[in-house]
Every structure is written in C-alpha cells, then in structure tokens.
C-alpha cells in the first residue's frame, strides 16, 4: 500500500517490520535476518473463537491468540506465536494513542508469548550493570530513571523492563525503546523542557520524552531490582534487602500484564521465571518520599552501591 516501505525497527531485540512508522523505536541496525515481528493494520474480530479468558479489555483464546482493545482508540490482534500484530484503529490513521497501547499492553503480551519476562519497572545501566526500579504507576520509577539519565547514565527501558531469565550467565535486561514517560511535575523537577514533547493522550499531562542519545542498545546483566514504595505516615525513608520469600512475592506482583501472562504461559512457568530471577539477583525494598527532592543524592547513593560492585 506504500511506495516507499517503512524501514524495519528495533524493539526488545526483535526485528520489527511495521506497515506504519513507529517513531518511538530505533531503526534496525542488526543482521539481515527475517523480521521477528510483523505489524500491520487490518480487521480485528469483535470476539475471538474459543475464548478461555474474557477480561474487560483482553480476550485470550485457546490457541493463544489475543485481542486487546481500547474503545475509541484501537483494537489489536496478537497471533498465537506472537509474531504478528494486526491493528484496527477506531478511526483515521495510526495516532500516537494507537501506538501508546501497542507499545504498552500489546508489547507486554508479546514479551510473555516470546519467552521473555516483562516487569513493571524502569531500568538504567551503571557501569555495565542493569538496575531496575519496579512498582505500580505513580511509584516514581520513571522519575528515578530520568534522574539517572540526567546524571549521565544510560536508560535501558522505561515502564516495562524486559528480562531474559534463561540467558547463560544469569538474567539479562533486553533494552526496550528509548522513551521516558514523565508527568509534568516530574519533568520540571528534572529540568526538562516540555516544548515539542508529545503527550500521547490529549487530556493527560504525561509526556513521552525521547532519549535516543542516552539509550543503551545492548543486553546488560541484571544486578539489582529495587521495589519502590512511597514513605507514608511516620514511615522514614529506608532501603532493605528482601528475604527470598518476600522477593519472590514482590517481584511476582511486579510482573507486567500478569493476568495475560498467567493465561499465556501459565502460573507455573511464571513462578519458575521469578524464582530463577530472585535466586541470582538481589531484590530490595526502597521506601522513599515522593517529593522530587534529593533525586541527585538518591542517584549518587545507588551508583556508589553498584559501581563499586
């Protein structure tokens, strides 16, 4: 349908051939392998055949195919093996909103399908070691990752940290794509300009900040996972190494699109992945005040812990 085809791009190590441009991704610069993932626009059925999990937004069928939809934005079909995505925008061409959910929930589902463990975490590289900050929306993951970028460190991924737990030598983080999602106040605290920065959803004050120059494209061994928690009430800021049981529990809670994952790869397989991760990578509980202050100090403290090894 297009005279000049869109160049292939890179997402979590995959060669992505997409019918429409994906400006959030870097161009593919790897070998001349066939595409790992095909993305095109097309028809997506209202109901899949043989639905085994029928969520409000996500259907999972017996053959492993999925349908995810956001009303008035788009419906997405994901093939059983996770090698093809069909996008049906609700109206008009593919917008930033359509790509937002493609690179959010749909991306998480693709990771599960393709044998990678997606965590709800942002991740930075410090001297060849990956440090992940996990937690629910609003826990301060992106802000902390942004503070690392500001201090000159490289970003591996924001919001979804893709881990290959089966890699020889231990779990490694596969870089996702070079974007930071930051709210207006966090951008201000990091001293970032908002001019020419997109907000994918018109109403929200959440910005999609490109960080190509600070992006790490190679796989980096995962050295630590910090589970972020807000310091509330009289609770002081603190950092504690989690016991084995607590680490497994908290990291399980941090699985991105966990309900989809349970349906697609099964509870057992997810548990094995988490156990493997937690048996080699130390997990900590990082309790911090949400005041945007002392970000530089926090970065320096964490760097000191990890740079020295």
């Amino acid at each position, binding site marked *: 349908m297009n005279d000049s085809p869109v160049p292939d791009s890179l997402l979590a190590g995959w060669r992505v051939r997409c019918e429409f441009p994906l400006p959030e991704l870097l161009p593919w610069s790897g070998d001349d392998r066939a595409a790992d993932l095909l993305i095109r626009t097309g028809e997506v059925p209202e109901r899949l055949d043989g639905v085994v999990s029928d*969520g*409000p*937004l*996500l259907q999972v069928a017996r053959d492993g195919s999925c349908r*995810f939809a*956001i*009303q*008035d934005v788009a419906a997405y079909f994901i093939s059983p093996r996770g090698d093809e995505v069909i996008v049906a925008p609700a109206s008009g061409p593919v917008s930033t909103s359509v790509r*937002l*959910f493609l690179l*959010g*929930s749909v991306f*998480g*589902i693709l990771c599960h399908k393709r044998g990678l463990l997606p965590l709800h975490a942002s991740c930075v590289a410090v001297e060849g070691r990956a440090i992940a900050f996990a937690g*629910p*929306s*609003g826990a301060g993951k992106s802000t902390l990752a942004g503070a690392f970028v500001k201090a000159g460190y490289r970003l591996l991924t924001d*919001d979804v940290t893709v881990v290959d737990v089966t890699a020889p030598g231990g779990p490694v983080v596969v870089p996702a794509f070079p974007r930071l999602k930051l*709210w*207006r*106040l*966090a951008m*201000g605290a990091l001293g970032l300009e908002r001019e020419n920065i997109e907000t*994918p*959803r018109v*109403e*929200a*004050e*959440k910005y999609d900040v490109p960080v190509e120059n600070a992006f790490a494209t190679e796989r980096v061994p995962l050295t630590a996972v910090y589970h972020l928690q*807000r*310091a*509330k*009430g*009289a*609770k002081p800021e603190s950092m504690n190494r989690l016991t084995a049981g607590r680490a497994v529990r908290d990291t399980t809670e941090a699985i991105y*699109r*966990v*309900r*989809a994952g349970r349906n697609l790869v099964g509870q057992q397989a997810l548990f094995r992945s988490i156990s493997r991760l937690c048996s080699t990578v130390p997990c900590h509980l990082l309790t911090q005040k949400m005041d945007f202050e002392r970000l530089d100090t926090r970065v320096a403290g964490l760097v000191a812990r990890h740079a020295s090894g």
Partner: protein
Amino acid sequence: MTGFYWLASYPKSGNTWLRLALRSLRHGGSAVDFSNEDSWIPNGAAREPFDQTLDVESSDLTAVETEILRPRFYEFLAKTGDEPILRKIHDAYVPTAAGEPLFPPAVTSGVVYIVRDPRDVAVSFAHHRRSSIDNTIGVMQNPAAAMAYRAGDLAEQLRQRLLTWSGHVESWLDAPHLRRLVLRYEDMLASPFDSLARTASFLGWEADPAAVAGAVEATRFQRLKAEESRHGFRENPVGEGAFFRRGVANGWRDTLSCEQVRRIERDHGRVMRRLGYSLTSANECAAEALLAQPYEPIDARSS
C-alpha cells in the same frame, strides 16, 4: 460469582472508623494494630488493582475513559470471585459518561452509607485537606468536586467524583435497586454496639455479641489516636498531623464562625433536615459566638 458490599461515604464521615471496627470484629474483637500493613477493605478506586485486572495502565487513560471502564472492572471481579467483596468508596453514585451507574446494581449485594453532620465534615475535611474551612465549604458545595486529581502528576487512586455534600448523600440514598443500610456518624458514636451489630448483620456476618463488644472497645477513639501516635497511620494523606483528630459530634460548635454555619446550612439545609440534623436558629448562632469570645475584664488594659 459473587457481589460487592460498598462502604460508601463522603470523606471524613467515619468510614475508616467503621472499617477498623469491622476488621476487629472479623478477628473476634481483637485489638487494632496500625503496624500491621495488610490492607483491609481497600478503596474501590485504588489504581493498581484496576490496572492489573484490566491489563492496562490507567495512567494512559483519561479520567472519563477510566470511569467508563470501572463498572466492567467490578463486574469482572464479581464474576471471578467467590467471596463477598468489601470495598470502601468515596465516589458519589454517579452515572459514567456511558450512561450507566458507576457501581453496577447487578453485582452490588448492599451499600452501607455513612453520613455525618456536614458542619463537622467541613472542619474535619479542612484538616484532612490541609486547607481552610472556607475553601472546604466551597468544595462541599461544588458539583464538580473530585478526589485524587492532581494537576501535572499521577494520583495513587483513580479520580472519584464527589458532587456536592448534598448531592453525594442523595445520590446514594435515592439510587434505585440498592439494598441499603444508612448509618449516621453521630449514632455510631452514641450507640457503637448497636451500629456495629446492625452492620455485621447487614453484611451477613454471624457476629457474636462478645466480639462486637470487643470490636467497639478496640476502636474507641482514644485508642485509635494512641495507636496512631505509636505507629502512625498509613492512610494519612501527607503523613503530617494526626488522622484521628477529635472524633466527636458537634465539634463544629466551637470551631465554625456564624457565617460558616450559615453557608453550610444554606447549601445543605434541606438534606440536613432529611437526615435529622437540626439547623441553628439565627439567634442561637449569634449568642454562641458571643459566649465564645474570651472574657476580658474591662479594666485589664488600664492596669
């Protein structure tokens, strides 16, 4: 398949107190321990369970989109659950932009609606919001008032529309097809045993009278206050000042100005009467204001 019991109230109306009493009752009337971090009767508008259940980041959705999806969220939890689900909520009983109730009657087993004299709510809510009483009275008569909205940042909870104080009360009291138990904060204070026993029975709990008495004792206001001073209270919004402050009825009488009382009664008088809250007479307020003036001997300054 199961259903929801909603503990619904305007903010600062005794919801947390009732939740703590129910928790104690659930454990046979045991002592309240704020160092225990298990969440108990969580907020039905909490963001994380919504995100996990719907496989989406609500932070990527607009407030209107999120609200439209909330009935689906509750239906899904009811469909996949097997025990009655208790949730605290501050939302008014509003229709979503799609025109259906935010809390679907089909999956609602019952609503415990807790209501408190709006003159006391104004004082308590002002403390909670770290704002002035006048500003808070304005919020209470603003039909567009909402909780958990923060300009330029992400709130931990989904946006909750409150309507005005009167609008909130009547949205719940007049909603069709809902099984309801209405509790006044003042009655909970005056007869806590009876209030808690009625609530337990409404929720279908078998409550042993000794356990109810234990739960009432365990959640006496001074005990909650003491427990908060020991461990803090994690639901305290900014972690400064006390969440459990006074816990009295009619505390407004020594706090609100006549003008503030008049504003509240003008805005909400009709609904206050409906709930049996008597309005002040014009003379009463003026007289009280005079009595509240510090007594100053007329010759004090000359000495």
